[in-house]
């Protein structure tokens, strides 16, 4: 059987199919996951029915049996992970087997993407497809939302379905896209960029991916359990009131939080401990600095989310009163805890985009990155300041009014380090030799969109202005400009730039340009008018609106549909160029001086033949004879071996 270059012969070749299906993989995971789900469901019923009927027992056979659903989800996820094989290595170690990374070599071919695989490149590709799938599902939800908003009166969806669509769209996007760049790109590229052969914790890396996939399915199941009425913020006490679908939200976000926390941990441990000789902190690529500044937030913020969700879960099941005023609780506790996580969360979304843009601009301007240390200071400054601003989400909630000037100041201050990224982008292009390839177009689109996103953030950070704009479409436009106009444009820049390295085949340039221009124009046409709609008094999450706003809403909806079609253009490009046209990319299609482009495309399983010695940063454009690394004269163990 033919084997792709760099891949090993499949050790399972020649075994009968039924023996191959009997192992630990995605299929086993599904089976054990479903088994766990029903075990939890009926186990929950058994528990609840056995309790004193005067307290919780009466929930037993109603449609509000949250205890059963929580147990079903939790046991389902555990079954899923056991079926994939995550328990095997811990159990083996408990029984005294030595440490190993056998899973990396065991599978080749398409099947390896459906298993627990410790090859960071495989995990990166798994993330790419998995997150892409959920991105499209959430995007479809957005199309349905805009379809509803074509007319002021209820159109297609009853009020409850509409709110569930809004919640599913927001929650799916916020949960999935936080790992949207770190998952696919950082997992694949960080070891290559720092000169390592693997991440610090390969099995945890695989776990973060499969947790996210299980979480996504759980969130989608919310449709079948009565929907979710709270929006992605899940505010109490509406949370407490909601149907069983709310449990899907809670479990989803808890799993996503866990996945994020572990992903951040892995990134930090890898970059701190596994850099190749000569890779000093001042030679790190900007993308890796973006990953570091994001990973700190990813490590520290989700535990707060998990705790507030656990408290919500207890409120919904065993009738505690954390957030119930009649029992002495308060809704403010939820708001503060949620946004203490929620604000670093949005910088988790934004920072990797900064990293990608500053990484790509030098390549396409053919100049070194301008102001390297300032750019790093900007990233770290954003990371640090993002902990001190969360109350700007709740300015008019009735928080102590003495606090508001402080949070206004701290939020305004964040624009200073963000501005450093803009300055460094500007300086990099000065006197360059700018090449307008598709990744560059997406980076420039990022600059345009993030400008408006950032400036509208200044409006929202100003308390008197926020009084009117909070909870209106102005704030919706702001965060869509920063998240979609920022992160997603940077994501596509990364896709067009790095997918040739990952698969060995270029994406079609002309289709890419059509995709970019369609997406850029449609995006601005969709979200630009939302600023105006917010200023005209249209509130968020409303299934109905004043009828004089209909023409503008229709324009926005039509543009949104074009935006959706532009995504289909990308999908077509992806399928056509990767499966049919298959134009070989070669090792360095962009003439980049970065370390990952000194390797062949696709990257071989073992990454580096020999760990290199780093001699400079990857931005030596225009400098005679500068190379990022040279082969080491003797074999150098890769930061810990294996």
């Amino acid at each position, binding site marked *: 059987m033919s084997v792709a270059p760099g891949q090993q012969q499949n050790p399972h070749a020649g075994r009968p199919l039924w023996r191959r299906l009997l192992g630990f993989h995605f299929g086993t995971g599904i089976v054990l996951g479903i088994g766990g789900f029903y075990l939890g469901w009926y186990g929950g019923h058994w528990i609840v029915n056995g309790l004193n009927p005067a307290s919780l027992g009466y929930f037993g056979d109603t449609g509000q049996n949250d205890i059963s659903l929580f147990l079903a989800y939790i046991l389902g996820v555990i079954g899923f992970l056991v079926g994939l094989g995550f328990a095997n290595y811990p159990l083996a170690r408990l029984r005294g087997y030595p440490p190993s990374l056998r899973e990396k070599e065991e599978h080749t071919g398409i099947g390896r993407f459906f298993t627990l695989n410790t090859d960071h490149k495989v995990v990166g590709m798994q993330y790419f497809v998995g997150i892409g799938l959920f991105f499209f599902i959430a995007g479809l939800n957005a199309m349905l939302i805009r379809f509803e908003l074509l007319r002021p009166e209820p159109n297609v969806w009853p009020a409850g379905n509409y709110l569930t669509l809004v919640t599913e769209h927001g929650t799916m996007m916020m949960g999935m896209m936080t790992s949207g760049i770190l998952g696919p790109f950082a997992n694949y590229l960080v070891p290559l960029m720092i000169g390592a052969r693997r991440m610090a914790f390969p099995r945890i890396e695989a776990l973060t991916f499969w947790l996210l996939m299980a979480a996504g399915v759980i969130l989608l199941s919310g449709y079948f359990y009565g929907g979710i009425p709270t929006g992605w913020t899940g505010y109490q006490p509406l949370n407490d009131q909601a149907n069983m679908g709310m449990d899907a939200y809670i479990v989803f976000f808890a799993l996503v939080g866990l996945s994020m926390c572990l992903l951040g941990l892995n990134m930090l441990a890898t970059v701190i401990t596994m850099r190749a000789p000569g890779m000093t902190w001042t030679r790190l690529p900007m993308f890796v600095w973006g990953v570091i500044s994001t990973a700190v937030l990813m490590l520290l913020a989700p535990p707060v989310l998990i705790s507030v969700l656990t408290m919500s879960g207890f409120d919904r099941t065993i009738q505690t009163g954390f957030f119930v005023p009649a029992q002495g609780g308060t809704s403010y506790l939820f708001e503060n805890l949620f946004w203490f996580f929620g604000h670093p969360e949005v910088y988790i979304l934004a920072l990797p985009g900064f990293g990608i843009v500053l990484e790509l601009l030098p390549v396409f301007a053919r*100049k070194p990155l301008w102001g390297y240390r300032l750019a790093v200071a900007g990233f770290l400054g954003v990371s640090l300041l993002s902990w001190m601003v969360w109350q700007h989400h709740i300015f*008019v909630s009735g928080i102590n009014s003495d606090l508001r000037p402080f949070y206004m100041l701290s939020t305004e201050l964040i624009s200073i380090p963000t501005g450093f990224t803009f300055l460094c982008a500007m300086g990099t292009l000065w006197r360059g030799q700018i090449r307008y390839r598709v990744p560059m177009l997406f980076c420039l689109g990022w600059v345009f969109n993030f400008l408006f996103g950032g400036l509208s953030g200044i409006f929202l950070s100003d308390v008197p202005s926020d009084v009117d704009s909070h909870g209106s479409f102005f704030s919706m436009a702001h965060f869509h400009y920063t998240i979609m106009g920022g992160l997603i444009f940077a994501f596509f820049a990364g896709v067009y730039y790095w997918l040739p390295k990952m698969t060995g085949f270029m994406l079609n340039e002309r289709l890419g340009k059509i995709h970019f221009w369609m997406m850029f124009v449609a995006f601005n046409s969709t979200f630009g008018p939302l600023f105006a709609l917010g200023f005209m008094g249209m509130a968020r999450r409303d299934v109905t609106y004043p009828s004089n706003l209909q023409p503008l809403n229709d324009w926005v909806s039509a543009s949104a549909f074009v935006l959706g079609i532009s995504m289909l253009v990308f999908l077509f490009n992806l399928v056509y160029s990767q499966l049919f046209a298959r134009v070989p990319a070669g090792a360095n299609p962009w003439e980049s001086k970065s370390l990952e482009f000194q390797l062949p495309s696709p990257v071989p399983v073992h990454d580096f033949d020999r760990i290199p010695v780093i001699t400079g940063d990857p931005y030596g454009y225009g400098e005679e004879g500068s190379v990022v690394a040279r082969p080491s004269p003797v074999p150098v163990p890769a930061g810990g071996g294996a």
Partner: protein
Amino acid sequence: MRRLGHFERVIVIWLVVSAIAMTLVAIFLTPILPPGNGGAEASSQRFDNEVLTLVSTLVCALIFVYFGYVLIVFRQRRATDGDGPPIRGHARAQLVWVVTTTVTVLFLAAFGTYELLGGAGGGQGAKPVFKSFSSDQLVSAKDPPLQVQVIAQQWQFTYRYVSNGGFESAQFVLPANRQVELHVTSLDVIHSFWIPSLGVKADANPGFDNIAYLTPTKVGNVRIQCAELCGLFHGYMFDTGRIVSPSAFAAFVKSQSQFVSPVTKYLPSFSGKYLPDPAFRAG
């Protein structure tokens, strides 16, 4: 006059474009910025938005002019052109940028705080600090703020006219040119009392009294909207309020309180919050 270098050209173009843009914005855009001039708070918020818009115009002009210039002038012209010059930084440019952005940001924060002191702040919690100084000239010594309570529930606002006998009504009517102290609370989940044209927004939290100040100056109808997702019919939780002359307000008070008088005596006494008794969850 010698030919200008690239950098000087960019600066000159930026200054010209900014001057034109800011003039156009000041003439055409700022008069229609929200929340409009329906009240004292709304006016100071509108002025705040005006300042922010002008500063944003300046920044936008800089980025557009710079990138427009650079993307046209410094593009690669022939495929055989090599790399650009290895410029890794410029200490003075960085210093100027850092200082300028910091000064701008601090100015905006100070200006926002100043406007906040003028009472433009929406819901301020149970112990409001900043009252409506800017509307002091409208408040005479013998006119304390009119106390009106907004009680939000799923999916309706009820208004309790505390200063006028404590009767409840589904109609929101206020006299013009009088400072009003709104007490916003909820009976079940979080709502938000928002009047876009008067610049007031105060979240209604169950078990909590959120105070906001309001000084309407123009007679007319205003749209009231719930601005915090509160469940199924959140989108239908809106109302039309009326700002009327003081005499019309007195007439309203008289006729409404008489109309609801059989019920008023059964209402609980005024409190910042109303919790169900016995306690039960989510109203």
